[in-house]
């Protein structure tokens, strides 16, 4: 198998993980700020 293809195969996962982490963190921060505004517990 071509080394360049294997390189992309190995390095694509951290990129997907970074994207997921961004989505989760953004949602968490929004919920945290909303909870603060409404003066209630986050969970």
């Amino acid at each position, binding site marked *: *198998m071509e*080394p*360049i293809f*294997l*390189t992309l*195969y*190995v*390095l694509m*996962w*951290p990129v*997907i*993980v*970074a994207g*997921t*982490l961004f*989505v*989760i*963190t*953004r*949602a*968490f*921060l*929004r*919920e*945290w700020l909303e*909870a*603060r505004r*409404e*003066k*209630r*517990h*986050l*969970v």
Partner: protein
Amino acid sequence: MAPNGVELQQLSGWLAIALLVFFYGGTFIMTLGIGKKKENADGYMTAGNKIGFGISAASMTATWIWASSMYASATSGYTYGVSGPIHYGLWGALMILFIYPFGKRIRKVAPRAHTLAEVMYARHGRASQLMLAGSNIVGSLISVTSNFIAGGALIGMLTPFTFQQGILAVAAGTLLYSLWSGFRASVMTDFAQVLAMLGAVVIIIPVVFFAAGGTDMFAQGAANVTPQQGSFFSSDAFMNQGAPYIAAVLAYAIGNQTIAQRLFAVREDLIKKTFVTATVGYGATIIGIGMLGVMALYLGITPTGGDVNNLIPQMAATYLGPVLLCLFMIMVIGALSSTADADLCALSSIMMADIYGQNVAKRGKANPKTMLLVGRITMVVATGAGLFFASGQMNILDLLVFVGALWGCLVFPVIASFYWSKVTNAAFVTAVITALAVFIPVRFSWIPVDGLWGLIVDVISIAGIGVVIGLMSFGFFGGRVARIAGIIAAVVAAPFAFGQLHEYAVLSGSLVAYAVSTGVCFLMSARSRMDFDFSTIQDKVGDFDPAEPAVPDATAAR
């Protein structure tokens, strides 16, 4: 390339202690902010059934990523080559995805439940409830033990401390922050843990890749890889790793109370979004970690002591500097703690709701304060049991396979119980026991699986393939498509599987469990006169605490 036998770097004792204090101290401090003066048993189990997307997606992801899955994915990459991590991580991720349509149905019929077994009590009665609860308890205890072992092994390898000291540290740390606030502490700390784990993956994989030689590693290491290991379509990887996992997709999701608990905790309209995000998060993280095993294979690295479980710490200790090694340790400690705390919460919920709430005190008479005490005692006892089993370093993966098959016996009866009004308690119990009775001799080859018996196992297993595909399709597309997909899958698989499948004991054992439980449950239920009214479940399963007036908490959200 790193030569084999190279001296692995270790963290100093004080640095290791500082990291553990930072991690467990930090998570404990996080939980202090969610303590309530007036404690609540329902909050302790499901956080009031209304947590948001960010925190629930983080929690699902963190819980499903356990330390053993990281190690197993790397092992799969090392053993089966480039397709190995896919055959571990992808199917593990789909366990989350395929359960969400069923999850939506379960929430619809039992919006304020705490455990799946509790709903089975309302649907069928005690026998079905205790079967599911019993399998959940065994599964969670195995998971707790496995995570303690992973922590002990990591600390034993990367620090001057021993394995025993390692398991004691992770057990005490996890119990410390889980004990007081239960599920609320678990989901709250999951966000910090997911941040550490996913963040570490984003950094560590590329760093190890470039430190190990980058693209040249694949050019120079091609001789270390067999044609099967170098192929994305490896039949070895599929038959030995992927296929048993496909069969287990629904079983692990149905049998795992940690998933059910999050299903009951998340706001109902956010179930799909949460589960899809967790699927992507888990899949990419675990497949990414599996790349360490693929790289080790190309580099020609031999695992320390011949134990493939040492691969990940070995790769980290070889290619990461001190700072990233600390990050790596936090990543694994985060993975094992987030799953261990979820299992402690799952065990406490089962003891609180299923054992005390439904069987000892009876609904309506359960004292929430006693429930909380039961939950906390359960956590302490479960931690002690996990420590006891972990100290003996039992071969828990064999146990896990066994419990997985037990869950396989439960899948059809549980799912059918939520959709088909004719399923009876007798059908449920008989189906599970019969399937287990056939599974055990097949899985452990008590009767030699060859000749006529081998062919019979093949036929039942082919039916099992149809059941697995049918059930997977049913959640998304309904009964008609499920029946067609199941029949097509069985017919297409038959020419390849007949005469062959019985040689793969793990796979055929699981498929037999599915097929037999489905067949018995279907035949007994089809003949029954029961016409269960699903709307009665929500009257039987609900909050244990008395309703409180909604008063905003001025001290909250700090």
